[in-house]
């Protein structure tokens, strides 16, 4: 993939782009976008993939006025204008799914098919129970256990990473907290807007996902007209990472 930058609303964004064919906008999860992850090549083999790093993630800037997922949704709609993308298919993972959902409610006519992978962003459960477990109050190892089907295999050894890579990870973690802290992992208004979504929408979840539960995904999908659900076995919150083949297969079958 090639890496370029585009400036929107005085915010310089890092854009990864590769492949050819109908445009597919890919919105990364909290861990950021890594062009070398195996699922990326599986997608670019068939589609033109455009993957921006969200403001404050990767090397994208974070202006001081950005503090909400909604801000990013507006920036990406403008990015589509600037890149001449009248209509795109859309994949959003985790917080990227939340950004995607916000975009769909603002400009439903600009999206073809949409795949939301372990998305967060709505509150559907009771007041006294978090819909998404609080990742900020549990030991780091517990978060990994909820994240992955096979946490041991997914463990990262910081001593093998460069300082710049560790810095990007720390920055991603910081920006994620800024965006999801309160209300925790959701926009209370979003569920009242999702009926506007006009795209065929596929909700996807890793079977072992300890953060986005099956019940949460079903409740979320029920808010989107005509949405359907698929489950990927032996995967957690990031099925694109743990099961890249199965993930790409489902994506390409659905998007066409």
């Amino acid at each position, binding site marked *: 993939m090639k890496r370029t930058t585009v400036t929107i609303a005085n915010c310089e964004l890092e854009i990864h782009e590769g492949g050819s064919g109908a445009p597919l906008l890919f919105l990364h999860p909290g861990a950021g976008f890594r062009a070398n992850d195996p699922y990326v090549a599986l997608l670019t083999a068939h589609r033109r993939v455009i993957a921006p790093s969200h403001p404050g993630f990767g090397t994208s800037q974070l202006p*001081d006025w950005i*503090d909400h997922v909604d801000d990013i949704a507006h920036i990406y709609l403008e990015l589509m204008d600037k890149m001449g993308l009248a209509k795109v298919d859309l994949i959003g993972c985790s917080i990227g799914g939340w950004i995607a959902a916000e975009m769909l409610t603002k400009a439903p006519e600009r999206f073809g098919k949409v795949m939301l992978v372990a998305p967060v962003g709505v509150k559907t459960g009771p007041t006294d129970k978090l819909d998404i477990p609080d990742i*900020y*109050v*549990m*030991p*780091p190892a517990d978060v990994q256990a909820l994240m992955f089907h096979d946490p041991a295999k997914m463990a990262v050894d*910081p001593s093998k990473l460069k*300082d710049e890579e*560790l*810095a990007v990870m*720390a*920055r991603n*973690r*910081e*920006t*994620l*907290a*800024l965006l999801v*802290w*309160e209300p925790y992992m959701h926009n209370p208004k979003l569920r009242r807007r999702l009926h506007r979504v006009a795209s065929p929408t596929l909700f996807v979840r890793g079977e072992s996902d300890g953060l986005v539960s099956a019940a949460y995904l079903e409740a979320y999908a029920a808010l989107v007209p005509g949405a359907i659900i698929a489950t990927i076995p032996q995967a957690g919150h990031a099925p694109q990472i743990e099961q890249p083949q199965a993930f790409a297969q489902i994506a390409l079958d659905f998007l066409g």
Partner: protein
Amino acid sequence: MQAWHFSESAYPYLPPAETYPSIRVSLPSKHFDPVKGAALWDRYLEEWRIAEDEGLEIMLNEHHQTATCADPAAPMVLAALARLTTKARLLILGNPLANRRQPVRVAEEMALCDVLSHGRVEAGFVRGVPYEVSPANSNPVRMGDRFWEALDLIVKTWTSHDGPFSHEGRFFHHRNINIWPRAYQNPHPPVWVSTTSPGGAAEVGAKGFVQATFLTGFEATRKIYESYRAAWRKAGRGQDVPNHRLAYAALIYVGETEQEAHDGAEKLLWYVTANKVAPQFANPPGYAPVAAQVAMQRGVEHPLKQFSKNPSVEAAIRSGFMFAGTPDQVYEQIKRHYDYVGGYGHLLIMGQAGFLEHDDTVKGIRNFARHVYPRLKEMFPKTKISGDFGDVPPEPPERFVLRSSHGVETDGPLISALGGASA
């Protein structure tokens, strides 16, 4: 030099530390016995009154969801002290501003306490330590920016007396600000800010507020003060920085004998050693800057955490965050630290912690007040200039080792450059 008696008002009667993952945030309150807790509060308030009788000033603070500090609402205890005491200055250090949703309310609380105490409030403000963000449900990102906007608004709220004004800022919105009562002191109570990083100290110095730093030893304290003094001068406040603009907090215990001092000092170490905090509470994302996060990934530890693995009175004294011994020894230790960092006008005395019982606490207060404090006041009057090193750079710190019959001096890890995560 002004000296301030400070207790964090801990509730120390806990089950063994192995049985809980964190003394902060998640420790169930079933472990707090209200009867024992009330007796402790009787005691802590009484110790502040005794400190006042001995000529010391008073300092208090707040923390949340923790047994290390049973005061989650310091302005309320400040109000009580305003009426229980008559002459001591009352320093609240401080209000955790980045976690308070309504700065105007904080301005009201401080103004009311100032009136209740007839103008004895010293209003301290802190960003809030990392383990407070969860109890406050406060976003750990951009806390510094929130802090400064809130503090500016508070000062404006205190000093506006001609009817309502409005504030439409980045983090806070408030219309019709017009607080009653106004503060007793004019223009407003002295403002203190605590930081433990040079970057934070520069901001405090530029604004000229009193800068306090906690347990930062020799090197780090000097860097913090240097940064404060440079920013003070750069802001056009004059070449000379009065020493009363700077404060240092240390664990302090004065005994009549070395043995007595050592026993008391050892109990004070509870403050450091009992602070068992789960990693997710100690380092929320965004609290420490990215560079510090990378350093932590590389294994760099906070010096106090390192210290707590092998704690000793001797190592604490060597590191400059504890002064303990006979009156002569303590005076020499403080003088050495004072000279090395360039001088400060306030000594914040962590004089009670954990299981240091009432009688021993009072003994420590009296020994300090009667046998050390007069010499400090004489040697380091308020008219002294901080950072007046002259042409001769200070020597590196010597060792002030307290001999103990408990055994030979242990070689605990030296605490040098405390920097890292700032408070």
